[in-house]
């Protein structure tokens, strides 16, 4: 009884599916999907080599500090970093007094309460505080940015495919809209308040080019602050903000693997030892 019913159900499913495939194929041939500007002009991120790449990658702390400087002097005007605390900066090589100074001198103060009156107030940041948001709330952020919301950057390199390379390419990818694009897709002209960037998913990003001139940031370590250099440094910094335990993970992984390789080898020898004298390899 099961088999005839099964065959019947099977024929039903197969018929519906093949019919659907046929309908799909006919409509695909008769009305092929129209090409879109996004599809033809979107670019994948350029390759980016960072010290933290690869299974044994380590952070280049000098670069992370430069990247932090770019975040502090450029990005932090609009972008929050609210998963990261000032105290975490010891992880990129700042000392405790330096962290304390960075926190207390941060341009934005931390929301607080006046201890006398209970009125809302602000106070200087402490190392234990997370980086304060540049805007009081989403409405304020949108109002200041042509109705676009600058996303939090804490996890940006993990929230995009090929995150660090994406950020580097995006920051250096601003350009004039290609004439070829406009010729082919006259309706796709970049709108007012938007900026053409082929690395952005829909090609038109609300963020104006943030890194525009060499020397926009003056590096303490004497590195020449080209736009490309600043973009690389801030990408490296954002790898750290997204995955501050990366080095710890790589180190632990190597130790665990060495242990497991030895243990598994011993396990294999034990297995061979136990089974010696018992023929068990099947002919099949």
């Amino acid at each position, binding site marked *: 009884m099961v088999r005839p019913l099964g065959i019947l159900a099977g024929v039903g499913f197969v018929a519906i599916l093949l019919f659907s495939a046929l309908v799909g194929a006919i409509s695909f041939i008769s009305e092929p999907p129209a090409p879109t500007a996004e599809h033809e002009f979107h670019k994948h991120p350029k390759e980016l080599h960072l010290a933290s790449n690869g299974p044994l990658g380590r952070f280049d702390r000098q670069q992370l500090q430069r990247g932090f400087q770019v975040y502090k002097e450029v990005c932090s005007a609009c972008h929050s970093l609210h998963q990261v605390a000032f105290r975490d900066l010891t992880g990129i090589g700042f000392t405790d007094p330096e962290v304390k100074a960075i926190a207390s001198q941060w341009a934005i103060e931390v929301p607080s309460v006046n201890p006398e009156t209970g009125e809302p107030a602000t106070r200087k940041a402490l190392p234990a505080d997370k980086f304060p948001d540049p805007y009081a709330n989403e409405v304020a952020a949108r109002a200041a940015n042509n109705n676009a919301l600058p*996303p939090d950057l804490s996890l940006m390199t993990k929230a995009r495919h090929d995150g660090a390379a994406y950020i580097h390419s995006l920051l250096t990818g601003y350009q004039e809209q290609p004439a070829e694009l406009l010729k082919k897709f006259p309706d796709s002209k970049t709108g007012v308040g938007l900026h053409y960037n082929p690395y952005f998913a829909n090609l038109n990003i609300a963020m104006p080019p943030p890194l525009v001139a060499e020397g926009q940031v003056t590096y303490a370590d004497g590195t020449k602050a080209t736009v490309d250099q600043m973009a690389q440094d801030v990408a490296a910094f954002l790898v750290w903000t997204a995955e501050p*335990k990366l080095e*710890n993970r790589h180190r632990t992984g190597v130790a665990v693997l060495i242990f*497991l390789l030895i243990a598994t080898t011993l396990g294999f020898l034990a297995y061979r030892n136990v089974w010696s004298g018992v023929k068990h390899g099947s002919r099949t």
Partner: protein
Amino acid sequence: MSFPWAKHYEPQNPLMKWVDDRLPLPRLVYNAVGAGYPVPRNLNYFWNFGVLAGLALVIQIVTGIVLAMHFAANGLVAFNSVEHIMRDVNQGWLLRYAHANGASMFFIVVYLHIFRGLFYGSYKAPREMVWLLGLVIFLLMMATAFMGYVLPWGQMSFWGAKVITGLFGAIPLVGPTIQEWLLGGFAPDNAALNRFFSLHYLLPFVIAGVIILHIWALHIPGSSNPTGVEVKGPQDTVPFHPYYTAKDGFGAGVFLIIFSLLLFFAPNALGHPDNYIPANPLSTPAHIVPEWYFWPFYAILRAFTVDIFGIPAKLLGVIAMFGSIILLFFLPWLDNSPVRSGNYRPRFKQFFWILVIDVLILGYCGGAPAAEPYVMISQIAAAYYFAHFLIILPLLAKLERTLPLPNSITDSVLGTPNAAPSAPAH
């Protein structure tokens, strides 16, 4: 229940004897996974995956319990509490990555375990109950994994929850009501997050319970083996301990090495970047995809694009997706070929490998955007999936000329020629 030549538990240690006389738990363990369980001597490495699935469940439960100590199941803070685990909890990153990748490892070994069962006919009499309980475990795993993926409350968590509960919304008349009831609201929110957390904590223990039944049912006929010929005498078996404990120990080492490579060096490779964006009900991701282990079923769901006789395509897709798993419950009766092992079924073997490739294609299409040519490919692949189980296997059982079986496991191992060629299967 066991073979008459199974070793009997004789405690040497007076304490163990004292315990065993009052509560025969040591005896139970001895007979279940100790020297008291005789196992065919010719099992190959594909028989390692049952134990490995058990190991994966233990890893999930241990890491999960500790994660639950730090996680806050509330829509306002869930996302940040996961980041708190990643940043501020001692070894929290290890726990979370182990739990997330442990789920993937669990599914990898369970899929290999299922395909081993499919190839060697492990679902056939007298082991139907083992197969059925295994499918129950698989369904519970899918529910648990789905709800677990919702907990970090990222974009894919939210939209995944919305799409999957939306499947119940396709049921005629009562669908939308059922969806609201499941979610505790009109869209995934705090009510859904809290109940998913509660159930995500409960179901693994239900799985553990069904695993006990799965092993119990297995021990009635004993383990199957690559020849598919039943055990005939003591020379065909070895005691589970030390023979298979040693082999499973080695297997566990290999499992942990692969797990570690994933966990320590590519912990986000199998995840989706969008889940590092906090859930936002007002912003739909460009492509909503579930975790990779659901991709083949997701492809079947999306393969139905045309309404048939007034039945909406969405409902057909939901029926087919659940049907693709439900039909496995009937497999022991759909495939009634008396020969178990695919090694002695030349035609079956070819169709089996087509099925493996077919499921991989479905998986690829399920992870791809819902556009041509992926939809067309998944339609053809889904058609083969149903045809394989519902049409090809029942017919094959009638039509196939099977190869002669060895007389016994021992004969097969020692290469003794067949004393008498066995009759064709039908």
